[in-house]
């Protein structure tokens, strides 16, 4: 993008506290427009002091604190990380800070010296990523340039993933809280799995998954695996399968209604997983979800999804197909209040069932789709 002069700075429009242009209708999407009372302000200050103590200077005490009091950390994160510390804490809990320190100069190399096959695809989507945020609005301005650099660097770093639509929203959200290089390593931490299971399968064109039922020993501690090829965003498909089952188990009446109306999660929840709620949800809610997502992993996405459906279930079960789809993409404002929705989400237990359904999904797909014998010998862990 270096050939382009920055475009004109967009004329100032009223913004919300996160930098998004306010919708014309004067309805604040974040519900935070009302002035904060002195009491709230003080409470916030106290919270920030507690957090600063927990982190230490530049994050020096963090690991120690997490080891000693993981439950305190979890509880505090669930209440929301103070906005002024969010960028730093996200890097600490995602493991990206360590990646950055272990790989000095790598990001610069990727941005400056490497070329990517995805460059045109990335450019095409740059102005279509958070188009209503002030940082990304100026054509070829600093926001758009950073976004381009991070996505390009990632597409070179991991050529199997390259660039996929949706990644821009992850990178964009991160760039509002940290530098380009930090955002890049956080993306790496997420997709390559620094702390939790890797999520690159959300964006892969295909992946090979070993089929446990076809393992044969070829001697010397080596095994030959039969591999299963999953095509097209394999992890999205797995998550949708798992979510579909969870809906039926947790909300049987609604699940039954979905079946009757032929609604499946790909119609409304693909974006939830592909962009971790950053695509179309109110930003203050997305941030609170990300706080927990980075610390506890992807299960929070399932929990929040279920909580949303649970909160609205009484209305949703009455709606026919089209209205249902509309409602599933336009949840009412009260449903998206983090202080209502998140406690509800925390109370839903999914871990055990998620693991069981992952197995079920792998077995089921092993039976139906094409399998490929892989010649490589793989040492069994």
């Amino acid at each position, binding site marked *: 993008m270096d050939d382009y002069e920055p475009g004109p700075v967009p004329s100032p429009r009223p913004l919300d506290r996160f930098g998004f242009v306010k919708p014309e209708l004067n309805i604040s*999407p974040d519900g935070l427009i009302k002035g904060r009372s002195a009491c709230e302000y003080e409470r916030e200050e106290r919270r920030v002091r507690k957090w600063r103590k927990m982190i230490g200077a530049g994050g020096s005490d963090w690991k120690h604190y997490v080891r000693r009091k993981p439950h305190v950390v979890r509880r505090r994160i669930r209440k929301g990380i103070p906005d002024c510390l969010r960028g730093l804490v996200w890097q600490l809990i995602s493991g990206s800070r360590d990646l950055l320190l272990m790989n000095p100069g790598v990001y610069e190399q990727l941005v400056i010296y490497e070329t990517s096959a995805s460059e045109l695809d990335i450019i*095409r989507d740059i102005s279509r990523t958070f188009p209503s945020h002030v940082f990304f609005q100026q054509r070829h301005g600093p926001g758009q340039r950073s976004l381009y650099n991070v996505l390009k660097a990632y597409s070179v770093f991991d050529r199997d993933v390259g660039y996929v639509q949706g990644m*821009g929203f992850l990178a964009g959200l991160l760039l509002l809280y940290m530098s380009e290089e930090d955002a890049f390593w956080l993306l790496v931490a997420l997709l390559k799995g620094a702390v939790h299971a890797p999520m690159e399968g959300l964006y892969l064109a295909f992946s090979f998954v070993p089929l446990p039922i076809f393992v044969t020993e070829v001697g010397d501690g080596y095994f030959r695996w039969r591999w299963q090829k999953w095509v*097209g965003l394999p992890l999205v498909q797995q998550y949708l399968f798992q979510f579909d089952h969870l809906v039926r188990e947790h909300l049987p009446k609604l699940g039954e209604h979905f079946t009757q109306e032929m609604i499946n999660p790909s119609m409304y929840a693909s974006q939830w997983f*592909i962009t971790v709620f950053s695509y179309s949800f109110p930003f203050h809610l997305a941030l609170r979800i990300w706080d927990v997502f980075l610390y506890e992993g992807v299960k929070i996405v399932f929990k929040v999804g279920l909580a949303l459906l649970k909160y609205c279930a009484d209305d949703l079960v009455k709606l026919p197909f089209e209205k249902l789809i509309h409602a599933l993409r336009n949840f009412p404002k009260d449903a998206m209040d983090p202080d209502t929705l998140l406690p509800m989400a925390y109370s839903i237990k999914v871990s055990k069932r998620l693991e069981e359904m992952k197995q079920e999904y792998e077995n089921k797909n092993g039976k139906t789709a094409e399998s490929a014998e892989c010649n490589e010998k793989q040492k069994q862990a």
Partner: protein
Amino acid sequence: MARRADEEYDYLFKVVLIGDSGVGKSNLLSRFTRNEFCLESKSTIGVEFATRTLQVEGRTVKAQIWDTAGQERYRAITSAYYRGALGALLVYDVTKPTTFENVSRWLKELRDHADANIVIMLIGNKTDLKHLRAVATEDAQGYAEKEGLSFIETSALEATNVEKAFQTILSEIYRIISKKSLSSDEPAPANIKEGKTIVVEGSEANTKKPCCSS
């Protein structure tokens, strides 16, 4: 579920919008269903959906339109939506030759996943960008004739030919469906999702909303 009087229709036609990323599919849809164009639109992730009820050949037709993400990798998810579609609007960008060159790949995609007799219309969008045009009308016209597709050029931004494009494909679908129908009193059910006609009431098409949100 009873049909409400104001939402009665004779036919329900499912149509898919496909084509490369960034050719303007979502804005064609919003122009047709809400008469809106959004300069600050986001790239489509997965699938979007909208409907509009209109008169076609003297009948009330509800068009149920599925808008799909254009990037190749999304086809694993979006191709499921071709099934049961009676029509497909295959969109390219008249200022981007590669999006026209990829039309043949999209046709193959339809042949692999959609019903054999799906009605396909080729649409060259963004004619408002006159000085950037890179695909000649005649070339696209010739290609469409060779492949047996109907063809039109549109501008979602200027609202040129958008209405006509949808009217044309819906009329074509109607003619095929009504030929199949045995009794004129009882319209043939439009096949969507394995034969189930989804009866729906109410339409959000008329409620004005800002098209962009964070």
